[in-house]
């Protein structure tokens, strides 16, 4: 499956006595990374830099696109709406993920496998299929409205509203929250809670003052992840929401597709990218994992 030239395998073999030769062999091995580096460099890094360049050079050189966006009332509204929506989705996800992850830590192995599968199944199955399902579920005669009617709240208009979008988006984002929270909880030494109670703390105090602080790192990691993904989310808001309530990613798409305004689209994209990178750097600092936060590896949300 993988073709390997003699130079590369020589380095994989036991080290020859001379240190310099090992080092040279190691360098030669790096050539194997070259094709992938070229593909990513030419077709990912170069386009990104070009876009950033377009944002300060089209239609004329300067930061006009950025100041133009900052003073455009519509853009500011959309940005604020996107931030608000991301915050709502994040809070919803924390509220649902925390008890769910806690439940995962106290059940037996078989139920834990079931609960994990329930998180991983939507994590990896088609985003388009799930978003379509939400369009069906949220329509005026849909299942969600039928359920709301039972409770005495329906019928309510959900499709095309921010309420509908946050319900659908939170479901898509929930796995990104559950996984880091569960990872943090799994690492908590339960004897600490027992010790607190042994020393006379009531269970609620032991939980609030020992367990909760220890699990907060996972919550912070998950929350930042959900926030980041929500800010740039395109598919679900476009299909479940309405153009009148559009989010940042839709605005970028309109600038490109309908107005062919690469300068403004570039400025919006660069802003989104910078916010994302800052937040991700924050997550990495919090979780202290090398590389990407584990839950980022395997996202179908975009």
């Amino acid at each position, binding site marked *: *499956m993988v073709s390997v030239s003699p130079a590369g395998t020589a380095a994989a073999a036991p080290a020859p006595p001379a240190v310099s030769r090992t080092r040279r062999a190691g360098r030669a091995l790096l050539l194997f990374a070259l094709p*992938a580096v070229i*593909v990513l460099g030419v077709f990912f890094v170069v386009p990104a830099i*070009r876009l950033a360049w377009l944002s300060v050079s089209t239609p004329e050189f300067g930061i006009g696109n950025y100041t133009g966006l900052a003073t455009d009332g519509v853009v500011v509204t959309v940005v604020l709406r996107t931030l608000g929506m991301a915050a709502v989705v994040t809070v919803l996800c924390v509220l649902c993920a925390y008890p769910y992850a806690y*439940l995962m830590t106290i059940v037996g192995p078989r139920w834990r496998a079931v609960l994990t599968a329930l998180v991983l199944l939507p994590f990896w199955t088609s985003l388009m299929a799930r978003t379509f399902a939400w369009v069906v579920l949220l329509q005026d005669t849909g299942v969600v409205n039928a359920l709301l009617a039972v409770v005495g709240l329906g019928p309510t208009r959900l499709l095309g509203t921010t309420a509908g979008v946050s319900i659908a988006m939170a479901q898509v984002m929930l796995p990104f929250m559950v996984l880091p929270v569960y990872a943090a909880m799994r690492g908590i030494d339960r004897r600490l809670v027992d010790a607190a109670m042994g020393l006379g703390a009531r269970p609620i105090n032991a939980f609030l003052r020992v367990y909760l602080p220890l699990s907060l790192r996972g919550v912070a990691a998950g929350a930042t992840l959900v926030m980041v993904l929500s800010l740039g989310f395109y598919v679900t808001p476009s299909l479940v929401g309405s153009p009148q309530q559009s989010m940042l*990613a839709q605005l970028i798409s309109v600038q490109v597709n309908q107005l062919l305004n690469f300068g403004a689209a570039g400025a919006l994209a660069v802003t989104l990218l910078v916010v994302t990178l800052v937040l991700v750097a924050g997550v990495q600092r919090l979780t202290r994992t090398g590389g990407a936060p584990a839950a980022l*590896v395997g996202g179908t949300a975009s």
Partner: protein
Amino acid sequence: MRSVGLRRALVALGILIGAWLLVPTLIVIPISFSGEDSFAFPPSSWSLRHYETFFTEQSWLNALLVSIQLAVIVTVVATLLGTAAAFALSRTAFQGRGVLNGLFLAPLIVPGIVVAVAVYAAFLQWGLIGTPVGFIIAHTVLAIPFVTVNVGSALGGFDRTLERAAASLGASAPATFRAVTLPLIMPGVLSGAVFAFVTSFDEVVVSMFVQSPQLQTLPVRMFTSVTNEVDPTIAAAATVVVTLTTALLTLAATLRRTRRA
């Protein structure tokens, strides 16, 4: 959290959230077998007509075939490039390693819409919009990280003394790689390949910008269907996609379990 009442409340909440996670994935299945021309749920009559449309109408069938062909090519290319890169990165120490690692993870972190617009602007100039090559390149960029992560973790848990043992018994370097290294990291390579396939097969945002009316992937066709039509054929499409990806990912999960064992 020891009281029985609290535990029961937690279990009830867990069931509710579990249902919330699961139902939207499964509900497309009964809708796809409905005999009606709407998205009514539950359907009042049953038939296979939406599948018949899906597998006979040109626009759906072509989209499905384009997506499958594309995903297969992307899987091969991304797996080769990603495995070679993961191998090189895990076996060499050098300065600037962090930068390279960052490069290999960047496509996972950068928001899809940003990648899409950047790629669109570049591909427009390079004449790659609406071409198979453009699709292959764009999807490969997105798929490589999944391969490097999976192969990288397989190599991370790898006992190098096995390679030394093989070599000390007289095996040549290529023979050591083929007989010892490759079989041991194979589960990682295969699960990376599955993730590459699913990434390409499922990708929407970048594909929407690279597509042309003549060359469309299935998720893009589904997106158009939800925005512009009320065509229940999409339920059949969604069911096919869910079935295919679930089957593949179950395979990947099994592979990973073998790797851990």
